[in-house]
């Protein structure tokens, strides 16, 4: 018999090994077993009810024939949301009912974690008037769709996929629910469901640096960038013997010590000249621009160079020249060797021998500004502007930031010798060597509010810190305490998000270009020392408050997640832990939240992070419209961590029809500011460009372009040469979705743009 062939069950073969007739019967029984598959409509229906009941809490409802309901259809009652999720929905379904009334159900009913790639299937109990039904379909938020039919099932396929993490309501109007037989429906169909969030992308590993050798270096010395970033200058540079110098000095006297240029300015004869002030341009030949100084600095306007050179008698000469080394001018002498100098202004120089701070202007007038008390340590660095200096401790750690004019000192925790000022002198960075692993702090020189830098390797110690002009970036060497492997890290400030990380060994004299787009260092090998430079991948030349610190973002995300909480209840413990004293967000947070959107964030000049949030209650059987509560949150640093200092939550309101902004992300790179504005709805493309404007603080509309990508529901707004500072994005109500619904209210948000 055909049903006997092929099947083999070793257990039964063993059991009936001596009774072949019983084995034969067993095979006959198995072969004749019913090949039944459940009705998929029943399977989907049961699933929807189970999940809905599970979401509400375990149902005590009787189960006998529970899904067979009366002629009026079955609508789940109760609006209690469970598990912080979308739950019940209106489900119109009648099983085994005469086809005198149209009924339907959807497999998405009561599901709250639907894939954005899901199609929406609505199953009817009889053949339908397809054209009429399609005309009656309305989806909120609007989705561009195509319709197809499979027997009695209407398949609604989004053209671009559904939006992630979004509650949807699919409505089919009652008057369009017409069967092919002419039967009609007792009520419209409302199907509510929600899509799951897209996985949070893991941060990509920061790119590596690709250094190129600019030239050779002698022993020691230091590096600095030319004001325009076009060249690296070494105080101990070595140029090839064949090279020639920059323009000849025209003004006498030329400093003698260590200086090798001839009065005419040409470097002549081999061998190579070590230990000179050499400029290594990014492109072109190296050129000596002066003798090797003990300290050197460009003037704020970049036109002049000031240097301290050995006078041959144990002291220093303060010399200025044009930025290319030409026209040197001896301004002043110091009986003691000058260890650091900087410019207070474009015509005044500040210098120190470690104990005293003096000034000299271009008219050769000198002043004594400050003298360190005996035994108080050593002044090792001067901030541009001359207002502040760093005093290295005489012993141990805990150097101090010295206000030169007042003499006031502020301890920099754990600081010893690894300290750097930003190019504009407004920010100081230092390595705290009082703890292990060591860490980096930064702070404004005028505020005693140190901020710890987040480092990619928490088990590493930092060293060789350097800042760019405006402290938008920091560079440091990170050495893992266990492996000893060192990495060069260039990171954003504040926060410390790495822009580039690359393995290195034996480097020193780390320095950042003024714009942060390049980093230079001396690489020391057994073959000698070379000066190398690398472009920082992706580093914008100007960045001002466009990204919030990672730690602040972590606080924000955790805070919002705690507001959504679990089972419709906020996580009170986490909210309290993330809130500053006096902030009681829990009492104002609406219950039964389903999700939340962080619409926009901005970093204020004070370091405070401001965030605009929308708290969402998904629709359910008791309230079929999505509800929204707007929230404004402020986050600031306190005791080294970020906390919520203010949370203003507005009352819940019904979400309006039409499109909504769900995220605004600004960025600036290369002088171009870009805003990514993401919507929850598919938009009518022609309405996008004209509805979006950007204004400056004076209310002047700036030139911008807006390009809409329907696949991501995102408009990219581009502003070339946007002015630095606070700008306002406005979206007018002329913006419309594919169903022709307009933005209910004008949208407005501010953001910080770079210059």
């Amino acid at each position, binding site marked *: 018999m055909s*049903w006997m062939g092929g099947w083999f*069950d070793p*257990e*039964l073969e063993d*059991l*009936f090994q001596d*009774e072949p*007739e*019983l084995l034969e*019967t*067993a095979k*006959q*029984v*198995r072969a*004749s*077993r*019913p*090949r*039944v*598959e*459940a*009705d998929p409509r*029943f*399977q989907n229906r*049961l*699933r929807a*009810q*189970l*999940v*809905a*009941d*599970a*979401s509400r809490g*375990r*149902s*005590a*409802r009787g*189960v*006998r*024939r*529970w*899904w067979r309901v009366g002629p009026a259809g079955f609508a789940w009652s109760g609006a209690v949301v*469970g*598990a912080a*999720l979308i739950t019940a929905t209106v489900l119109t379904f009648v099983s*085994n009912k005469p086809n005198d009334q149209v009924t339907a159900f959807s497999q998405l009913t009561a*599901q*709250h*974690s639907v894939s954005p790639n899901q199609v929406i299937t609505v199953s009817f109990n009889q053949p339908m008037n397809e054209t009429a039904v399609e005309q009656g379909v309305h989806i909120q938020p609007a989705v561009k769709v195509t319709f197809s039919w499979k027997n009695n099932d209407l398949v609604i396929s989004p053209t671009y996929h559904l939006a992630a993490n979004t509650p949807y309501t699919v409505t089919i109007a009652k008057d369009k629910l017409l069967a092919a037989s002419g039967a009609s429906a007792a009520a419209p169909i409302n199907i509510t469901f929600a899509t799951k969030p897209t996985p949070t992308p893991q941060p990509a590993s920061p790119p590596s640096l690709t250094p190129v050798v600019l030239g050779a270096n002698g022993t020691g010395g230091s590096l600095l960038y030319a004001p325009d970033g076009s060249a690296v200058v070494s105080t101990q540079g070595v140029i090839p013997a064949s090279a020639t110098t920059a323009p000849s000095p025209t003004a006498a006297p030329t400093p003698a010590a260590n200086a090798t240029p001839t009065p005419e300015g040409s470097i002549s004869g081999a061998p190579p000249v070590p230990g000179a002030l050499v400029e290594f341009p990014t492109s072109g030949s190296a050129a000596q621009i002066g003798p090797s100084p003990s300290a050197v600095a460009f003037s704020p306007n970049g036109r002049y160079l000031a240097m301290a050179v050995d006078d041959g008698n144990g002291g220093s000469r303060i010399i200025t020249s044009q930025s290319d080394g030409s026209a040197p001018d001896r301004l002043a002498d110091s009986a003691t060797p000058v260890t650091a100098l900087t410019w207070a202004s474009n015509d005044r120089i500040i210098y120190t021998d470690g104990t005293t701070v003096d000034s000299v202007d271009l008219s050769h007038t000198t002043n004594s500004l400050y003298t360190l008390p005996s035994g108080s340590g050593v002044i090792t660095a001067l901030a541009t502007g001359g207002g502040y200096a760093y005093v290295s401790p005489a012993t141990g750690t805990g150097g101090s930031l010295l206000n030169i004019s007042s003499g006031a000192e502020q301890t920099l925790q754990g600081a010893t010798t690894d300290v750097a000022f930003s190019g504009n002198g407004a920010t100081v960075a230092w390595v705290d060597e009082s703890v292990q692993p060591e860490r980096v702090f930064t702070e404004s020189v005028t505020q005693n509010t140190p901020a710890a830098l987040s480092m990619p390797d928490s088990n590493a110690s930092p060293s060789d810190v350097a800042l760019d002009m405006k402290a938008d970036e920091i560079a440091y060497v990170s050495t893992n305490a266990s492996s000893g492997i060192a990495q060069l890290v260039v990171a954003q400030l504040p926060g410390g998000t790495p822009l580039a990380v690359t393995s290195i060994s034996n480097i020193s004299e780390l320095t950042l270009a003024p714009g942060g787009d390049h980093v230079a260092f001396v690489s020391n090998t057994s073959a000698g020392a070379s000066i190398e430079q690398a472009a920082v991948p992706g580093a914008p030349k100007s960045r001002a408050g466009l990204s919030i610190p990672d730690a602040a973002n972590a606080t924000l995300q955790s805070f919002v997640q705690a507001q959504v909480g679990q089972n419709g209840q906020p996580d009170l413990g986490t909210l309290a832990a993330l809130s500053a004293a006096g902030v009681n967000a829990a009492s104002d947070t609406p219950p039964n939240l389903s999700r939340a959107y962080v619409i926009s964030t901005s970093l204020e000049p004070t370091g405070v992070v401001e965030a605009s949030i929308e708290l969402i209650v998904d629709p359910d059987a008791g309230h079929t419209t999505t509800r929204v509560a707007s929230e404004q949150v402020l986050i600031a640093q306190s005791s080294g961590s970020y906390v919520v200092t203010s949370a203003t939550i507005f009352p819940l309101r019904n979400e309006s029809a039409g499109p909504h902004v769900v995220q605004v992300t600004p960025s600036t790179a290369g002088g171009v500011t870009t805003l990514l504005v993401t919507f929850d709805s598919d938009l009518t493309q022609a309405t996008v460009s004209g509805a979006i404007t950007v204004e400056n603080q004076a209310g002047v509309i700036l030139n911008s372009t807006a390009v809409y990508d329907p696949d991501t529901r995102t408009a990219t707004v581009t502003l070339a040469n946007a002015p630095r500072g606070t700008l306002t994005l406005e979206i007018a109500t002329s913006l419309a979705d594919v169903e022709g619904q307009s933005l209910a209210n004008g949208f407005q948000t501010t953001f910080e743009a770079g210059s």
Partner: protein
Amino acid sequence: MTLPRAYEDQLVERAKEDADAFGELYDHYFGQIYRFVFSRLRDQEAAEDVTSEVFFKALRAIGRYKPSGHPFSAWLYQISVNAINDHYRSRKPTSSLDSAIAVADPARPVDDRVVDSAEAARVWAAIDDLPPQQRAAMTLKLGEDMKLAHIGEILGKSEGAVKLLIHRGMIGVRLRLGVVVAVEEQS
């Protein structure tokens, strides 16, 4: 297809709090539970009733479920066996196997269905008349291709006891089919 045990244990734990996780369990086990129930009742409406009862009972009780080393499916089958027995106590199945096969595979040629349905009806009607434990063991083994050990977990019996149930059940079927029993059965 069996879920990896560790994953299944985690899924069951999550299902105690997470509706989605329960939905995933349902998705995985619905087919086999429904087939088992249907094979015992052979009536679509009754099978849907009992299957829904099985899963609602599981939903209500899953919070008290503790892994016993057996697959989660064993627990569902236990609920199913009890639900089927309850159903039998309340009423006997009323529909014929013809309707079952029609539901199962309406696309099959009518001639095949007639032949098969006659044979199948005769065979499974014989199983219907077996005592409940034999009936359950036979259905799980020959309807679900389940291992003897697994059947024992569901029925709360040893593997040897299950063998005995199947052995006796097979003889009972043959008797009911009018086949001369060739061996002495001392049931």
